[in-house]
């Protein structure tokens, strides 16, 4: 599958070339020039962070937190070890962008992490990679070997006193490890159960040391920001929403795939790029930012632009940029049942409201879908949801509740019909 790009990470990357991931290919595209410039011109740590701040790059993993600001939280004069961690535990249903960065342009991530390490005075870093993409983990390790052999990783990088090394850690199937403190636990060789915050990772992270965690796409954007300037990156998007962004488009479109486009692009344009609706069917609903983001009816979505502010104003979140498109043949009760099952399956079990609540949500939606819904079930879903959201250590409970609230809000009549008539309002067809 190709990546369709008008953006910064995949510019010039020919995804049909089996060698597009290699160091040679990356260097030919201008790769490692940003790192060389920093080290050869002795650009200060402060200036690197200022450039990233100026770009308005916001975390691409889902939360949208300003990357440069996060970097400035790292205590730079801390006397002991500090760590940098990349979160490639991409398991949010609908999201498949970071996998393509690993497969087609891994050195952009490696260079971005080296620059981040330099800016924050970190010597050792890890990339935590999603369990199910083992082949991409193996390829990433080969890219690391190339970078090490070329002197971009290890001691005295490019003949300077700067030392930095990066290793890949392979997960083995746990959605919760995408949560940054669960990821740290997992990296320490434990069950991936989130930690209480505070303390935040910037003061107590991996092995109890100061740690900064960013998403794959965030790091991979950094070489462009340093090479071409934060201002140019900012201008590629819109104010407060700097840059281009990868959108993973899945579901009922003719050309599912990754689209790297300027933030602020109208959704209608993205839908057209993805080949429009499959079989000419009518657009019914879109989940614009991964399965945890509230669903939006198609007509509301058609008025949105793809950026943090516009999607948030419409009542959802840009999240990870995973755009799940559904046509008129989908029964929204059935769709929600599938998501509810996922959160129930993936709750780590640490907090009672989430461990028990996700099971309640799934069982109630399951019985509505299977013709056994009761008149007060929608109130029960609301009540269970209210006892989950905001009452747990991490946001998985909230993530499980958002789809329930939004599906039952925007498509309430389908749930009511199901409860009353014991069957779907629409003649459901998955595809």
């Amino acid at each position, binding site marked *: 599958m190709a990546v369709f790009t008008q953006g910064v990470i995949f510019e010039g990357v020919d995804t049909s070339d089996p060698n597009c991931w290699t160091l040679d290919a990356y260097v030919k595209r201008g790769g490692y020039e940003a790192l060389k410039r920093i080290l050869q011109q002795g650009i200060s740590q402060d200036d690197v962070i200022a450039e990233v701040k100026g770009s308005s790059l916001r975390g691409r993993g889902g939360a949208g937190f300003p990357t440069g600001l996060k970097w400035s939280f790292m205590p730079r004069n801390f006397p002991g070890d500090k760590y940098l961690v990349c979160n490639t535990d991409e398991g949010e249903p*609908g999201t498949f962008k970071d996998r393509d960065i690993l497969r087609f342009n891994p050195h952009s991530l490696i260079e971005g992490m080296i620059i981040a390490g330099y800016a924050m005075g970190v010597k050792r870093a890890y990339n935590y990679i999603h*369990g199910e993409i*083992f082949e991409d983990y193996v390829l990433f390790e080969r890219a690391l070997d190339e970078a090490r052999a070329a002197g971009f990783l290890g001691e005295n990088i490019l003949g300077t006193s700067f030392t930095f090394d990066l290793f*890949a*850690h392979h997960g*083995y199937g746990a959605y919760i490890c995408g949560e940054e403190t669960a990821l740290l636990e*997992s990296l*320490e*060789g434990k069950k991936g159960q989130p930690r209480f915050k505070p303390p935040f990772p910037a003061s107590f992270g991996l092995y109890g040391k100061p740690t900064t965690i960013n998403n794959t796409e965030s790091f991979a954007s950094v070489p462009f920001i340093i090479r071409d300037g934060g201002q140019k990156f900012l201008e590629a998007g819109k104010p407060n929403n700097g840059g281009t962004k990868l959108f993973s488009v899945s579901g009922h479109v003719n050309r599912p795939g990754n689209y790297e486009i300027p933030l602020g692009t109208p959704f209608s344009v993205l839908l057209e790029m993805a080949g429009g609706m499959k079989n000419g069917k009518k657009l019914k609903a879109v989940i614009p930012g991964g399965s945890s983001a509230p669903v939006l009816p198609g007509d509301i979505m058609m008025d949105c632009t793809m950026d943090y502010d516009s999607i948030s104003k419409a009542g959802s979140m840009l999240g990870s940029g995973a755009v799940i498109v559904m046509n008129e043949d989908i029964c929204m009760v059935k769709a929600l049942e599938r998501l509810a099952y996922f959160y129930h399956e993936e709750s780590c079990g640490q907090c009672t409201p989430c461990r028990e609540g996700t099971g309640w949500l799934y069982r109630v939606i399951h019985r509505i879908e299977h013709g056994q819904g009761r008149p007060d079930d929608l109130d029960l879903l609301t009540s269970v949801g209210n006892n989950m959201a905001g009452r747990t250590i991490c946001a998985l409970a909230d993530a499980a509740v958002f789809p329930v609230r939004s599906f039952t809000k925007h498509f309430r009549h389908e749930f009511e019909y199901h409860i009353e008539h014991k069957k779907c309002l629409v003649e459901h067809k998955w595809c």
Partner: protein
Amino acid sequence: MLSPDALKQIDREVAKYPADQARSAVMGALRIAQTELGWLSTETIEFVANYLGIPPVAAYEVATFYNMYDLKPVGKYKITVCTNLPCALGGGVDCADYLKHKLGIGFGETTPDGKFTLVEGECMGACGDAPVLLVNNHSMCSFMSHEAIDKKLAELK
């Protein structure tokens, strides 16, 4: 219990982490052990723990937490199909139904000849390639139409 090659691979994992943090290598070590032996018995988990110098329970709790570790024997080929929402919209449920029909087994079952185990999986981070399935945890197969499934099953001898 494990071959010299597997132990060498585990040593490589250990070397990624600070000298006093061998526990970090437990996920990789369990993966390597499972790849070699097909599944993780309690004895295998204990062996891995002892090799890393960590309490067996620390390895056991990792093996039971992450869902790609198999704590019971599985068929020669474990096929995991994603049926999460984005994949379902791209044919994942249909793909799973076809596999159940072809293999004559349901989710969580193994064919009588011990060749195939079918498992329902959650998001693999490859929704744009739907329908997707994973063979023995490590080999991802994309765009699995009925024809592609027929071809794949014929390859898995």
